[in-house]
């Protein structure tokens, strides 16, 4: 087992543990904290996969922006009190059952080796140029659409969370 493998196991297990804690924890603040950790470990996995740029984005956008948003909302709403109730047994059983079933199916599916129908070219290194260049060449349209999407999100958020109505 080389260091690469060891890191994989560490990041994976830690990430999954965080994931479990996110959903198993009753306090949303704690959940949010574990989610941050999860994002970070995920970024670690990305690094292992040599997706350096994406790993960076992951930390910046997720751990940085998204989670702050979450925490901000949690604080803003001060919802600790309301989220103290117990889990519903039925929901827990159902959730676990569906989750397990999904994993079980996935295991069966993955037991058949995956041979990509079309192999790629050179090894990827996850560098900035490698990833970013296509955005402005091949993927310009989705890129622009994403921009519009962000505009929509902005307008939407403003409208939905304005305190005072016009």
């Amino acid at each position, binding site marked *: 087992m080389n260091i690469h493998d060891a890191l994989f196991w560490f990041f994976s297990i830690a990430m999954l543990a965080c994931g479990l804690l996110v959903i198993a924890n009753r306090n949303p603040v704690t959940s949010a904290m574990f989610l941050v950790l999860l994002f970070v470990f995920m970024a670690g996995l990305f690094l292992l996969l040599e997706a350096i740029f994406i790993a960076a984005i992951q930390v910046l956008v997720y751990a940085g922006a998204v989670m702050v948003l979450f925490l901000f909302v949690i604080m803003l709403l001060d919802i600790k009190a309301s989220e103290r109730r117990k889990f519903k047994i039925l929901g827990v059983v159902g959730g676990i059952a569906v989750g397990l079933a999904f994993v079980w199916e996935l295991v069966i599916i993955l037991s058949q080796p995956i041979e990509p129908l079309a192999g790629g070219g050179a090894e990827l290194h996850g560098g900035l140029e490698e990833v970013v260049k296509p955005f402005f060449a091949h993927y310009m349209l989705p890129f622009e659409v994403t921009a519009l999407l962000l505009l929509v*999100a902005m307008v939407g958020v403003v409208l939905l969370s304005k305190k005072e109505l016009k």
Partner: protein
Amino acid sequence: MTSALTLNHYLIVSGLLFALGIAGVIIRRNALVIYMALEMNLNAANLALIAFSKFNRIIDGQILVFFIIAIAAAEVAVGLAIIVALYRRKQSISVDELTTMRL
């Protein structure tokens, strides 16, 4: 690369995370936490994509991940805005109380 790690390792991890996400959505009643679980789903997909991208040596996977992250951020913003609006109106973000329309 002398690593013993195969694509399946990453896929299993991603699958487990995805399963956790689904389970979280089903189990939790707090809209915020449900939303967190949903983010886990997207992350699981990201992991699978990057793993595929890596092992297939095709960059498109990473591009998609980029879009996903961007969109997820926008989605979170909108989602949280809705949750805030919901809280303002009902003083609660428990989805259990959102059952006025049913049957």
